[in-house]
């Protein structure tokens, strides 16, 4: 049913570019960036912060991302939240393979990005050895602000099509590195009517 069978490049990359397909492509990119459903892939500490990002204070739903899909088939973003052990690595890869194109990966936290402080026998030193990573969110764990920044960055990359260009260059993920945001959240901010 899907019009696209295998999305490696932009939605309609195979077609000749004219005004119409160009517009359609823009539209598709807009849709993809505004509706990127994350897969529920929580591993460790970062998963808690990832869920907190979905909570009322930070509200992932603003980006249309509250639809955490349990089934990898329906998910677009895999947020690798936490340390990946040697035992988990094959499972991670399997779930990545089960996701449908187009799919994006955010490596959340230093453990996922590089093994972090646990440079030892048990951990995979950097999840980019298993799956291509598009955005690295630093921090241990990255605060929700940092994760949001990673997500917004990813959305921008998708909408501008930059992500595909970068992927072609690197041959893997887009590999965008961010700085950790250290925003004071001490302000009592309550969202909503209450």
């Amino acid at each position: 049913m899907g019009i696209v069978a295998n999305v490696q490049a932009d939605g309609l990359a195979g077609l000749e570019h004219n005004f119409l397909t160009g517009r359609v492509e823009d539209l598709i990119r807009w849709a993809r960036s505004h509706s990127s459903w994350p897969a529920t892939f929580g591993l460790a500490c970062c998963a808690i912060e990832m869920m907190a990002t979905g909570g009322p204070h930070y509200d992932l739903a603003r980006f249309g991302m509250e639809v955490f899909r349990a089934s990898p088939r329906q998910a677009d973003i895999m947020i690798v939240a936490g340390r990946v052990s040697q035992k988990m690595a094959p499972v991670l890869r399997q779930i990545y393979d089960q996701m449908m194109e187009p799919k994006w990966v955010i490596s959340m936290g230093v453990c996922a990005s590089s093994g972090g402080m646990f440079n030892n026998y048990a951990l995979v030193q950097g999840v980019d050895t298993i799956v291509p990573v598009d955005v690295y969110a630093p921090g241990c764990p990255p605060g929700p602000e940092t994760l949001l920044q990673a997500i917004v960055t990813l959305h921008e990359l998708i909408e501008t099509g930059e992500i595909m260009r970068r992927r072609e260059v690197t041959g893997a993920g887009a590999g965008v590195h961010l700085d950790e945001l250290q925003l004071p959240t001490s302000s009592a901010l309550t969202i909503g009517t209450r």
Partner: protein
Amino acid sequence: MSDAETPSIDDAELAEESVEEVLEEELPQPELLHGVPVSESRGQVVLHPSRDEYVALVSSLRELGYWMCVDLCGVDYLGYGPNRNLPAGVAPERFEVVVGLLSHSDRSRIRLRVQIPESDPELATLFLIHPSVENPEREVFDMFGIRFDGHPDMTRILMPDEWVGHPLRKDYELGRIPVQFKGASTAR
């Protein structure tokens, strides 16, 4: 004793020898509690049963109110200095299994340290006395390679089944991978 010492088997042998020498020279009568040598560490009571006394001791302690086995872990003393805080009459071995028992009625804890020789890393299981040791014993097996005789499911618990080696042994490398910085020509 210095932290600059590099752990090696020779040291352990040395340590054993020195303790044996001490034992032969003085031969003091060990203080006994529940029929096994007892020592104290920072105010905590530690019993030192032999491998043969172990199960019977836990069993009788259970009768005495130590109903809960809260903890069971292993220690690899390879490369440790001579002073193991063992009472007289207990010969130090490379491995130790440390069992923590808790009595709710008199709110006290007691600790057991069982010496396990490197040549025969086996110990009887406590499973039929305290079912709570199932996971911890599997962990000790996984991490130290100490087999628990009679344990219903003596398989690896944390590492994958096909993993080689026992990570918490002192002669098992940490597995550190040198950090490589982007653009650097050589690994640092």
